[in-house]
């Protein structure tokens, strides 16, 4: 099965758990961005499912969980926000 290499951007507690703000993952081609969580390494994925209110960005634009990943994509896991 063909694979794609993507960069995953991590923030807040995910970034701390990973020890880095970006990791690279090899994923099956056309994996939807919403499935990236399940492919995170165990020490990073501190819970089985993404938290309620999780959003996703693809190449620094908002996207939907169903968007398929292509080779070279930069996907961001945008945890529920708390700015302000």
């Amino acid at each position: 099965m063909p694979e794609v290499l993507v960069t995953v951007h991590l923030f807040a507690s995910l970034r701390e758990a990973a020890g880095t703000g970006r990791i690279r993952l090899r994923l099956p081609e056309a994996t939807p961005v919403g499935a990236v969580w399940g492919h995170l390494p165990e020490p990073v994925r501190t819970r089985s499912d993404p938290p309620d209110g999780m959003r996703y960005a693809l190449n620094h634009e908002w996207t939907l969980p169903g968007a398929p990943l292509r080779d070279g994509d930069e996907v961001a896991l945008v945890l529920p926000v708390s700015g302000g």
Partner: protein
Amino acid sequence: MVALSSIPLDLATLVQAATDPEHGGLVTFIGSTRRESDRRPVRTLVYEAYEELALRELQAIAEEAAARFGARLAVAHRTGRVPVGEPSVAVAASAPGRPEAFAACRYAIDELKARAPIWKQTEFADGQTTWLDGCQDREHGHWAEEGAPGEGQGPLPRASVRGGRPA
């Protein structure tokens, strides 16, 4: 004007950026770190932004408010460590009249808090730290309301609360 800043926010700069000679009313909002969170003393907050997207989102919010209310906006958010009492976010909105200026400012801060990809880590006076990001807070925004931290209630894994991090 929209900005992320690792140094203290300057309200006068925002007011100047939002000023328009045709606008008679200008409203600002300043959000500051309180010295207590859920009745526990706080030492400092740390803000982390997804910078590329946060700047776009702040710009989108400013443009939405401008279109809806005929307003001119300036929005800035601190990043990094913000000691208790210092502003973490500031919005300035001017409009021809005061109802629109109030509405535009309120719209921008409400949308910013709901949408901008920026996260807050609370560092308590006892050195314990926690992110408000839906993973470490038991209930988003109401982290310690039902009990002391680390008691293992609810979905919060013990490991997600870090103790004794050096300042």
